[in-house]
């Protein structure tokens, strides 16, 4: 199960209301390479990981991504909470406001609803971990673009932290992939999905 901790992973502040930036940041909330995609990609994949350490890593990183979803959601909330509906409309969040008000919703900046086709769980640990490494790089690139899009020092501090976490996760997934490859080199360890009869 999961337990909620009543604090963010680290403090989040914004210097000023910025609807345009909030709209861009939505990509890391409900966009293709955002934190929601990340957490559920890893948590769903954990069920078919072959070893204790890969199951642990996917659950642990999946859990941290939920904390990042909360931080990104906090950024979005703080960037729009003092805006007027007119300001939301002129900064391009008019449609979002009409349907969701000031709520955090799993949309991309373009308004596309989150879909599970953003993520994959193949049941194959090599394919899944390779996808996870790519996902971390895509998220890193997204955070770098967001960093280029704002001069707000408080927002930049949070974005830099989140960017750095993608780099650490990429490193850990790389180590997990190496471990799975050497695990599968042992002929006694079957590829998931093969029964012993099929293997012979």
């Amino acid at each position, binding site marked *: *199960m999961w*337990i*909620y*901790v*009543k*604090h*963010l*992973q*680290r*403090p*989040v*502040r*914004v210097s000023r209301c910025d609807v345009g930036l909030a709209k861009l940041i939505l990509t890391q909330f409900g966009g293709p390479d955002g934190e929601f995609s990340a957490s559920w990609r890893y948590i769903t994949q954990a069920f078919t990981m072959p070893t204790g*350490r890969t199951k*642990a*890593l996917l659950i*642990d*990183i999946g859990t*941290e991504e939920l904390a990042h979803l*909360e931080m990104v*959601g*906090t950024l979005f*909330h*703080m960037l729009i909470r003092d805006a007027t509906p007119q300001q939301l409309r002129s900064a391009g969040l008019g449609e979002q406001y009409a349907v969701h008000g000031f709520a955090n919703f799993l949309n991309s900046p373009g308004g596309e609803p989150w879909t599970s086709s953003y993520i994959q769980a193949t049941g194959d640990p090599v394919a899944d971990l390779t996808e996870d490494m790519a996902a971390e790089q895509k998220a890193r690139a997204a955070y770098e673009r967001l960093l280029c899009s704002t001069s707000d020092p408080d927002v930049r501090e949070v974005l830099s932290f989140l960017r750095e976490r993608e780099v*650490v*996760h990429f490193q*850990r997934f790389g*180590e*997990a992939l190496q*471990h799975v490859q050497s695990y599968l080199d042992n002929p006694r360890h079957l590829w998931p999905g093969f029964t012993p009869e099929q293997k012979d």
Partner: protein
Amino acid sequence: MNGTHLKEKYELLHEIQKWRFRVLELALFLDTHPDDSRALEDYNEAAKRLHSLQRTYEERYGPLMNFSGASGGHTWTWIEEPWPWEIGT
């Protein structure tokens, strides 16, 4: 809660965040380096520190986690605002 108390509360919360981050980072490292005894030592030290800070916080201000088994005290403070996305801490 007055200003000084609030400041103390958030300072303690910030310490907890720092130590929980240390625990989390070492846990991820240990998932892929389970035989690293130095990392495990660091983890155990950080976990002990986090646990004690958390106990101090919960004794003073009430539960920090839902369903954690920590005492609810004499008043149900879990419902107290602000929530994390409101203060940003």
